[in-house]
């Protein structure tokens, strides 16, 4: 049976009916990893023994007749910036090459309680800084659709693992598009929840006012199941909402008649590949056919979002990464005095892009630059948020391409940090406003998946699920499968 092509809810049903055990399912996925991982390199760590032990425990619980969650026994992968108790967590950085967290992240704990099986920790751009996973301190990940192209980033490993069937679902993190863009490049669904919906406790920080953990899945029902599990207040993260989390499965409704979808013209501007724009317009026509009302809208401050995002994220990163000093964890380069220990450890432990952003951030926060850069960027955040709020008075949701291109070639943008950052031009403004947004696959161009982005008002993930589910039920374009060599 092609178990690696099934979705979480299908696998859950098979286990419920005792047609497959959790241990068998886990072994199957470990074997799958054996087959494709040499080529893909989606994982930093594969937790074989732990996974089998967890799987056996689930089988025992099921044999005892215990009531289990719908995620019980499901093999999952976590991005390697999510702390997992006793399991190496590196952020794909040499500076954390041997870090073993003494605690589970909030989301890891919730998934553990739901008896999901951790099969491995996924590769990423170092400290989540990048859009291609080429900035990993260890190795690059390949796109399962075309091994000459990138899987996107920074959650490239997570996206590739789900697309290639190495895990039934994964979690990634998104600071400027790092879930959505790799989801688009790898033909899977990726959702960045509303800022404050999912705990950041145990997520190794990049830019705390922008970071958010979210799921990567193969279908919409899976997305609902995982959101049900990971969303909600965490006393250990004071930025999480106290609002009650609905049962997201109730939002999986095959009906979008009368739904008003805005098309921000700034996102369809120059830089977007013609054939990709055509594909997005095809999706718009399909949505109209299904009863949605699609109309153009202007978001004139969009062009300021990227520079402002770059400033805020670098500034916050320079502060968040100050803790990597060789004192308490990770790499330490010995030196005669503490200052040199700091300098050598950090210089040898961090990659080039990380150092670049730390220095940029330091520059923006220095006294003479603070007002002109950092405070200005914070004002742009206010403007972006207000602009989205105004658009949502007229529309239930906004639709844009996730990325101006499909997956680009390995090495194509590696030497041009600005070009790399620009690949997130459609996704960054969303993080500035803290809105929920989802990338949904919609067809392919020249063998590479296309991603459609939907943006909704705060805490209305239900709208995204509804539209995604309706499209999923009405067309076969939302589930491409890569033709891997094996």
């Amino acid at each position, binding site marked *: 049976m092609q178990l690696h092509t099934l979705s979480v809810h299908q696998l859950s049903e098979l286990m419920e009916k005792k047609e497959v055990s959790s241990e068998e399912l886990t072994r199957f996925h470990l074997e799958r990893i054996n087959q494709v991982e040499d080529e893909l390199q989606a994982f930093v760590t594969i937790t074989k023994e732990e996974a089998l032990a967890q799987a056996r425990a689930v089988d025992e619980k099921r044999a005892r007749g215990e009531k289990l969650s719908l995620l019980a026994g499901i093999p999952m992968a976590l991005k390697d910036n999510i702390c997992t108790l006793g399991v190496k967590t590196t952020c794909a950085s040499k500076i954390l090459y*041997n*870090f*073993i967290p*003494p*605690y589970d992240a909030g989301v890891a704990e919730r998934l553990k309680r739901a008896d999901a099986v951790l099969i491995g920790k996924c590769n990423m751009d170092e400290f989540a800084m990048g859009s291609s996973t080429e900035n990993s301190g260890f190795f690059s990940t390949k796109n399962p659709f075309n091994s000459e192209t990138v899987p996107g980033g920074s959650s490239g490993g997570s996206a590739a693992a789900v697309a290639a069937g190495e895990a039934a679902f994964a979690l990634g993190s998104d600071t400027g598009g790092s879930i959505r863009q790799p989801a688009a490049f790898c033909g899977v669904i990726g959702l960045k929840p509303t*800022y*404050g919906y999912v705990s950041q406790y145990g997520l190794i920080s990049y830019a705390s*006012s922008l970071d958010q953990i979210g799921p990567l899945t193969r279908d919409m029902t899976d997305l609902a199941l995982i959101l049900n599990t990971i969303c909600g207040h965490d*006393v250990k993260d*004071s*930025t999480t909402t106290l609002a009650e989390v609905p049962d997201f499965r109730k939002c999986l409704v095959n009906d979008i008649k009368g739904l008003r979808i805005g098309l921000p013209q700034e996102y369809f501007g120059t830089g977007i590949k013609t054939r990709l724009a055509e594909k997005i317009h095809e999706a718009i026509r399909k949505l109209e056919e299904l009863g949605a009302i699609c109309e153009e809208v202007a978001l004139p401050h969009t*062009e*300021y979002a990227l*520079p*402002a995002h*770059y*400033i805020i994220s670098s500034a916050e990163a320079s502060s968040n990464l*100050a803790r990597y*000093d060789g*004192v*308490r*964890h*990770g790499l*330490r380069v*010995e*030196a*005669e*005095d*503490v*200052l040199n*220990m700091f*300098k*050598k450890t*950090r*210089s040898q432990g961090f990659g080039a892009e990380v*150092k*670049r952003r*730390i*220095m*940029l951030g*330091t*520059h923006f926060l*220095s006294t003479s*630059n603070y007002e*002109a*850069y950092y*405070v*200005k*960027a*914070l*004002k*742009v*955040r*206010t*403007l972006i*948020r207000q602009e989205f709020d105004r658009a949502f008075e007229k529309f239930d949701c906004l639709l844009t391409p996730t990325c101006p291109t499909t997956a680009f070639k390995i090495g194509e943008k590696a030497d041009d*940090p*600005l070009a790399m950052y620009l690949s997130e031009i459609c996704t960054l403004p969303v993080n*500035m406003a*803290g809105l929920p947004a989802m990338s949904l696959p919609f067809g392919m161009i020249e063998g590479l998946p296309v991603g459609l982005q939907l943006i909704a008002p705060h805490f209305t993930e239900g709208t995204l699920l509804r539209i995604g589910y309706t499209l999923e039920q009405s067309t076969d374009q939302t589930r491409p499968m890569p033709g891997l060599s094996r």
Partner: protein
Amino acid sequence: MPMKITEKDVEQAALLSRLELTAQDTTDCTKSLNTILEYMDKLNNLDASTVDPSAHVLRLKNVFREDKREPSLNKESVLGNAPEEQAGAFKVPRIV
């Protein structure tokens, strides 16, 4: 108004962020940072003088919890990651 970054600025940023750059690194870094900063000049076209800055997007303020003692992390597992430890503390080169 935002100016281009010089090699001296890069050296200063490196000092503040405890990074060690070779002369070549400094030159390369100055170049790439300048390209990025040129792009930032876009922000000069925007008059945001009447806008309030947002440090974050949520309408949350002063989220406190009760000052109640709860178990902390297990000391052994925390020290387990230490490059060097002694007598239950992180050991570092002499500071004073």
